[in-house]
């Protein structure tokens, strides 16, 4: 992170540029919604734009593009657990509790 006044002064223009870019991406998100894509494409487009915006905020406004390794370490650990958290819905799909594993064999009417 920049701490000397000259470096901070240089960053000011970048902050404004990023702010304007974020507003443009917001407009794109709203306009893309009006195109009425099919749901999987709409979700993909919206999430990709949100990820781009989020990475801009994190890297520039939160100065993550040049931070100390302790912060990267803490965030890496968070990302691992966050991914696990996002995968929990998959376990509900795989959940078979209450569902018979095998259908009971039908007894032949022969006997």
């Amino acid at each position, binding site marked *: 992170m*920049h*701490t*000397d*006044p000259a470096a*901070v*002064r240089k*960053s*000011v223009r970048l*902050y*404004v540029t*990023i*702010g304007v870019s*974020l*507003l443009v991406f*917001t407009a794109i*998100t*709203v306009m893309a*919604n009006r195109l009425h894509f099919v*749901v999987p494409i*709409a*979700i993909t487009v*919206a*999430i990709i*734009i*949100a990820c781009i*915006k*989020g990475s801009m*905020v*994190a890297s520039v*406004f*939160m100065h993550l593009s040049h931070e*100390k*390794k*302790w*912060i990267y370490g*803490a*965030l890496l*650990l*968070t990302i691992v*657990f*966050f991914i696990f*958290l*996002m995968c*929990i*819905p998959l376990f*509900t*799909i795989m959940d078979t509790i209450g569902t018979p594993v095998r259908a009971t064999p039908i007894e032949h009417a022969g006997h």
Partner: protein
Amino acid sequence: MNIPYTVEERPDTGLANGKLGIWLFLASEVMLFGALFSTYIILRVGATEWPHGELNIPLGAINTVILISSSVTMVMAWASLKMNEWGKHRLYLLATFVLAAVFLVNKYFEYSAHFATGEGPWHSTFLAIYFTMTGLHGLHILGGMIVMAYFLGPGAKLWKTNPDQFANRIEYTGLYWHFVDLVWIFLFPVLYLL
């Protein structure tokens, strides 16, 4: 008692204690909101139908613009301190506070419109998760406003006695505020558009 490493960096971490502290707090916040996003996915995937067009998209978009603008003013408030421009810092911090207040006023109108038609969190699964996520986010906005009000008021005295420590405090407030903005960047498309 003098608390160590409020300004100078610890030799082992290379960071002031407050900086590492706020990042660990934000890590816990990621998990808090992550749990709610995960819940949203479970509810949405399991639902036979999901409502569309129930929320006011223009108002949501305006709130997105407001929060992004507040993030810019917040980072400018910190940059002004680093450039030793106290007057500009006050102006930018005040602008951030006002933008946060406008965000909450818009949210109030949005909530009021829902409650006026009897569409509270009890109305549907979608509205239950909408009120939970945006309500928690709104509380974070309120928390940020309280901190900003402190630095606009009594907390500002620290600038005269220890400007570096004050600048660090504004930086930590900014990190929290950008995180709140970051959460809204994902909340807006997920709840309003999809």
